């Protein structure tokens, strides 16, 4: 699953560390999400969307044939 997390985070001028702190996850989790190595749970996806005041679909892009990226 692709996502625009890095782009959105950079636009808002927030560091990985700050985002991790706000979402109560590790900085590596943010890094893995941005690199597409890890797909978030629905709960974390909602937290991220709420943090940026966007919808989940605005941040995460589901494509047909996506497999579990965890």
């Amino acid at each position, binding site marked *: 699953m692709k996502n625009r997390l890095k782009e959105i985070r950079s636009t808002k001028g927030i560091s990985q560390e700050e985002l991790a702190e706000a979402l*109560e*996850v590790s900085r590596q*989790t943010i890094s893995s999400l941005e690199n597409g190595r890890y797909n978030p749970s629905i709960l974390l996806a909602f937290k991220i969307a709420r943090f940026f005041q966007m919808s989940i679909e605005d941040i995460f892009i589901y494509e047909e044939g996506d497999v579990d990226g965890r």
Partner: protein
Amino acid sequence: MEDKLKKQKIKYFIFTVIGYLLGVVIYDLSGNENSSLRAIFGIIFVVIMRALFDLYQYRKHPKLKEKEKQLEKDERLIVIRDRAAYITNNIMLTILVILWLTAIIKRNDELAYYISGSILILVAIMELSKYYLSKKI
């Protein structure tokens, strides 16, 4: 903060080893020779060293404990832990099966009996956990 936690874990490991060695050396120097008691003495020293290290760390960096708790709930780390446990379990079972076969070939019935018992216990725990979790989730 996360880097500090990583360094803390390395220090924790070093303190564990030092604590054990210290306990064993002190036990030996006091002229005792019981190997079981020696190990227990080492473990007691490990507990003492780790408790002292914890106390020092959390007084020096009070936010570390908070961060540690936060990281325990990190979903990616939980997934990693679960997968590591699954792989470890599979490797353990494979090793035990190999040992069991070796014991049978070498005609060591007693060892084969204990190993097969261990395999059965492991499989039973795994199946019970699956059953419990499938009811819960």
